[in-house]
């Protein structure tokens, strides 16, 4: 592998890993804080991608679609938390699995009813539709770089919110000891709603950003869901930073796996997970 293709694969790994981080960070927060296993999290990614497709067709601009889509996703997340998930906190994991599995069926069928089962492309915004020439034959698309930059900005913002704000303090406290937070008079239900809506919006944003690269297609959420599970397992439940490290590991393992061992590419990520489990059954960074 020469240097230019190595550089391209490295940038691809980063971009893929960072995009996965957007999905997995919401998942791990919902696990860690609310103790809920949410199989429908991948559907939020799918919904985001379809929102990008529908809104871009309507407005003619992906940027506008994202600006409109994020508040929609936040509202949708808050609604779901109020209508369904708030009833699941005291139930066992099996019932959570069941309900969220039912939700996947509903979301996929609604998607099929409303948008159909065809594969759709989404146009890259004109000002990002260029590529950087690396060598005479190889170039790197600006849009992928833009995704990485957006994700890095979001990761920093997330870090700031969680570590430096009052809301973040309450989220961290909720992650450590739910009962204590309630006893201190903090409205834990409000925190749950905020965190859940945030998780939905992050997953939907990941779907919107990915739509021009991967195009939008039925069941696109299920692969992302399972990879996000792997990331949460590797990173440690409830740990956002663990999720970041794990997402990057998975991004690199998957991208370089496809180049180096194409036949086994689907399996590489799971082998990494198995090794981590042997080494640290609780994940790289344990909750905290």
């Amino acid at each position, binding site marked *: 592998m020469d240097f230019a293709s190595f550089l391209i694969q490295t940038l691809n790994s980063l971009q893929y890993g960072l995009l996965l981080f957007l999905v997995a960070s919401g998942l791990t927060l919902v696990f860690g804080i609310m103790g809920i*296993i949410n199989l429908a999290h991948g559907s939020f990614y799918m919904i985001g991608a379809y929102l990008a497709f529908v809104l871009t067709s309507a407005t003619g601009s992906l940027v506008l679609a994202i600006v409109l889509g994020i508040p929609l996703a936040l509202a949708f997340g808050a609604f779901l938390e109020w209508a*369904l998930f708030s009833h*699941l906190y005291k139930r066992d994991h099996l019932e959570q699995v*069941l309900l969220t599995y*039912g939700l996947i069926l*509903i979301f996929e069928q609604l998607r099929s009813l409303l948008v159909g089962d065809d594969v759709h492309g989404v146009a890259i915004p004109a000002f990002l539709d260029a590529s950087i020439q690396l060598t005479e034959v190889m170039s790197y698309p600006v849009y992928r770089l833009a995704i990485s930059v957006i994700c890095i900005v979001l990761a920093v913002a997330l870090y700031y919110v969680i570590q430096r704000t009052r809301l973040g303090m309450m989220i961290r406290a909720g992650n450590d000891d739910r009962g204590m937070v309630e006893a201190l008079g903090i409205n834990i239900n409000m925190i749950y709603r905020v965190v859940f809506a945030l998780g939905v919006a992050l997953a939907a944003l990941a779907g919107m950003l990915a739509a021009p690269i991967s195009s939008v297609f039925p069941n696109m959420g299920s692969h992302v869901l*399972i990879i996000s599970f*792997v990331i949460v*397992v590797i990173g440690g439940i409830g740990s956002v930073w663990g999720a970041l490290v794990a997402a990057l590991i998975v991004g690199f393992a998957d991208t370089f796996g496809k180049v180096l061992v194409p036949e086994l590419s689907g399996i590489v990520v799971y082998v990494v997970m198995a090794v981590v489990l042997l080494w640290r059954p609780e994940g790289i960074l344990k909750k905290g």
Partner: protein
Amino acid sequence: MNANASLIPKLVALAIVACVPLSGESFYIEIVGKVLVMAIFAMSLDLLVGFTGLVSFGHAAYFGIAAYAVAILSPEYEAASLWYVLPASVGLSALAAFVIGLFVLRTKGIYFIMVTLAFAQMAYFIFHDTPLGGGSDGKYLNNKPSASIFGWEPFDLTNEVHMFYFVLAVLVLVYLFLARVLQSPFGRVLVGIKSNEHRMQSLGYLTFRYKLGAFTLAGALGGLAGFLYAVLFGFVTPELLSWHESGNVLLMVILGGMGNLAGAIAGAFAFEAMREIFADITKYWQLLMGGVIVAVVLFLPGGLAGVPGRIKRALQGGEAK
């Protein structure tokens, strides 16, 4: 619980199912045959979920591994011997469950659910991506295994009625076997682990070994169901290992009420019936199915199996007032 009292309805149900081939309709024979296979699959998962308290969300892997094993081990132009491919396929599933169990049983709770799912997905990709499995189209099993023993053929699996009774016989044997296992000291320990693993550990049981035993046994029996599925339909696809299958079989167990072998069988019947009926009403059957699942969780904790108890309690409550 009076075992004899619950025996009669079970025998009646068995007799009714055994009469299905008398209809002579291939459609019914095949569809009920399929449900019986799924019932075996559901019982194998119930051993983990209902009796040991291990919520495995990747049970389809063992079903699929054995199903692929028959298709791969059978020669292309002639029938393989049943007495070789059956133990070999089930053995492979058991081996896979043993190895995966060594990893997944190190985890608990939500982790366990996610990790079993991830390993099943790994198995899915092995058959989907490598030359072993024949890609997303899957593989055909051109010749059903032959039951011949030194030239004597006790039954013929290419005959749909023989196949049906073969599946039914396996179902009854698996039921009796699991019922026996659960009565044994081994089964008692599993139930003990479900209610309180720490207590079992302080009593001196090496619970990891018991859980690994249960996981391997469930994998083997899941494999047995997968084997029957492949022989019944004559082809296998990677979708047999997909997480939707793992979800469906979990639903069957829950519908039937966990920790109840006969319930798992009833759950398989209820699930397939629901699927057929909804698919008949509308092509958007997933919407109905999903709606029913969400409603059951929200309004009926304990599943359909809890309904009689709820009615009873409601009636008694009424009398007390």
